[in-house]
């Protein structure tokens, strides 16, 4: 007997009463409701497994090599100066040193260039143990205020750095701006001053869309507690690139931020004379400050991670491909062999 769309259980009330008007209660047939859509039924055979591993290996290893090569070509100099730049008489009391107005914060040091570095050479400052990703810190800003002059009134989020003692709004408000990094670096090599270009160190989207061109700092760092650098109130915010760079909160407690670019080449074994103004207080919380000079490649700074990851994964996949081939050869199982059905394997006892 014909099996009318045999999967139709519960579909409408039966064959329907065939009156002269021939009304059938069968629901309208659609491939979706009867679950008869054409489908692709992939089966993960050994062939597919091995093919996938080999193709991953073949694609990833060259990418890994390229990335690693690019990263290896980058030269990076990291110099930690926070403990170095405390004069010996304050070595036990660095917090006192950094907070006092009267101490001399200038610190001169020399570093050697290990390899030739082609311009542009990027200067970063790296902070350790500084939690720019702390929840209260991240929300302590007012983006509307930064963009438009009309929205000058600081928001609640910026407490306690929102208004001055006499109720004037602080622009830019909030802890992020208040804790602006204010160490400065000057470089000389072979008695020639190296110009540090501080333009274009922030992402252009920030400069063009986040920080207004008609917003000027007002009442900034005017309280008794100074958290960081001061701002020139005659320069609009979208040109204050140090502030813009600082205000992009970093993801991890150890982070780098771009300070500037040096646009001359440095040769190997050059001695760079650095004059550091050690202003910023990282001593109260056990933070560290480092100065980083780095070239870049198409991939960015010196980061072997991606290259190594690609190589590792590619190599692992090739290794897995080979081991799977061995395993399939040593312990074969015919595809679609009914003797692997569990009721054929347990000869006795069907219902357990």
């Amino acid at each position: 007997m014909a099996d009318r769309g045999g999967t139709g259980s519960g579909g409408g009330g039966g064959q329907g009463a065939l009156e002269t008007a021939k009304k059938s209660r069968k629901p309208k047939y659609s491939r979706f409701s009867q679950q008869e859509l054409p489908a692709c039924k992939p089966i993960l055979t050994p062939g597919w497994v091995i093919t996938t591993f080999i193709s991953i290996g073949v694609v990833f290893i060259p990418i890994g090599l390229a990335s690693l090569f690019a990263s290896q070509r980058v030269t990076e100099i990291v110099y930690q100066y926070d403990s170095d730049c405390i004069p010996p008489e304050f070595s036990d009391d660095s917090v006192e040193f950094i907070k006092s107005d009267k101490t001399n914060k200038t610190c001169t040091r020399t570093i050697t260039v290990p390899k030739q570095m082609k311009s542009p050479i990027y200067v970063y400052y790296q902070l350790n143990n500084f939690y720019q990703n702390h929840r209260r810190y991240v929300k302590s800003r007012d983006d509307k205020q930064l963009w438009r002059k009309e929205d000058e009134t600081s928001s609640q989020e910026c407490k306690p750095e929102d208004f001055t003692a006499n109720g004037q709004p602080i622009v830019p408000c909030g802890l992020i701006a208040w804790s602006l990094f204010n160490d400065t670096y000057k470089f000389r090599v072979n008695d020639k001053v190296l110009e540090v270009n501080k333009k274009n160190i922030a992402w252009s989207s920030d400069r063009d869309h986040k920080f207004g061109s008609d917003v000027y700092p007002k009442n900034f760092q005017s309280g008794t507690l100074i958290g960081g650098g001061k701002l020139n109130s005659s320069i609009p915010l979208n040109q204050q690139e140090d502030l813009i760079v600082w205000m992009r909160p970093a993801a991890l407690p150890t982070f780098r931020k771009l300070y500037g670019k040096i646009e001359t080449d440095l040769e190997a074994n050059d001695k760079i004379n650095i004059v550091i103004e050690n202003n910023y207080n990282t001593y109260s919380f056990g933070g560290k400050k480092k100065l980083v000079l780095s070239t870049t490649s198409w991939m960015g700074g010196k980061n072997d991670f991606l290259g190594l990851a690609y190589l590792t994964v590619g190599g692992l996949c090739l290794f897995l491909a080979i081991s799977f081939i061995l395993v399939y050869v040593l312990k074969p199982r015919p595809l679609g062999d009914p003797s692997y059905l569990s009721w054929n394997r347990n000869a006795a006892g069907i219902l357990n």
Partner: protein
Amino acid sequence: METAINIAYACKLISNEMKQFIISSETDVIREVEERGDQVELARVMKEEVKKELKKCLEEAQQYFNTLSGPKLALVIDGKCLMYALDPSLRVMLLNLSLNCNSVVCCRVSPLQKAQVTTLVKKGARKITLSIGDGANDVSMIQAAHVGVGISGLEGMQAVMASDFAIAQFRFLSDLLLVHGRWSYLRICKVVTYFFYKNLTFTLTQFWFTFQTGFSGQRFYDDWFQSLYNVMFTSLPVIIYGLLEKDVSASLSKKYPQLYMEGIRNSFFKWRVVAMWAFSAIYQSLIFYYFVTDSTSTGQNSSGKMFGLWDVSTVAFTCVVVTVNLRLLMMCNSMTRWHYISVGGSVLAWFVFVFVYSLIRENVLYVIYVIMSTFYFYLSFLLVPTVALLLDFIHQGIQRWFFPYDYQVVQEIHRNEPDGYLRAGGLEISNHLTPDEARSFAISQLPRETSKHTGFAFDSPGYESFFAAQQGVYVPQKAWDVVRRASMRSKAKAPLPPKR
């Protein structure tokens, strides 16, 4: 009693090889006591008789059970004896005996007794019971069982209204159990475990972040990303999966009814399975978090600029969305175009959303444009989902080959056959019949009526072509049919609507 046994033979519940235990209330002993008319004595005697019979049958059954290759057992008991057998003192014996039998036939039972028997098995044997019936007298039985199936039709809709599932014909029961019940189990297991997995992955990635924020509770992802994750970016594929997933086709499900054992053994929702998903989620979240944060610790493109918190989290979020959607495709056994549409659509929805959102929202302003302007993004977009899915892929490869599930073996056995419902095979009658087949099909659907004519022998096609015309089904007439109709004594009436 004999009628019941005959029907049981016809339904293949009982066969000649089975050993039948018959507990009947029509034995001589009982008839004698009945004739005497004393109700109290009758009750007592019946109870004694039933007890004796039960004991005897139970002992015999134990013997058969101890020898492994004994015949199958069947129990036939009628309503009157059942009344006494369901007594609390005899109930346990009845249950033990019934559970040892392959078939139990109860005849002349009242609706209450039907329910009582069902409850006895349900509570006593602690198994899942299913009862099926079509009339009002089956309602209590349907409601007493775990799963009640009602057949709609001739006896009205009472059974349907009281039941959990309603079907139109008894033969659809095999479809209900073996096809749809099985698919339902598979789908529910997979949907539930997948849902927990995807949320676990997403949340654990944030969790690893808390260790590096000084435990201040800063969110890794932007709020709207988090809110819309479950609503927009990962919801539709799993819905489509739950609607359309099939491990084997309907005809194969019926061909291999042993596949139903997977549900009985709970193969897809054991703790081991759940633990495997959880482990996969933990592994993937570690990959997402550490790969992305470690590789963004230095400048990101040749301009040396650094990523901030929101850039890093957007990269991680993109990887999470893509990986979780691809993982769904990896676990599909049959992929329709809706799967592709929903998975592709979800990923696309994410990109469209973030393109628009990052133009509006202040803290993540232009984030996606910033990250998409670096090579780093594309490299990590290729690497991170691949590494995350690698473990699952290896696991699937090994499991499929060395420890295959039954349905996987069945899939492999029938891998080269076209789908049962495709026109190519013509295995089932669908819309593509030859004209002759169509004609006989149409005719076979006509109501069978006794003819209004007298004095004529009926030649099948001619008779049916008349009624076919009445029903609007075209069937060409035979020559003698015209002659026959010209000689009819009375005008043929329109056929009455058939009782179904």
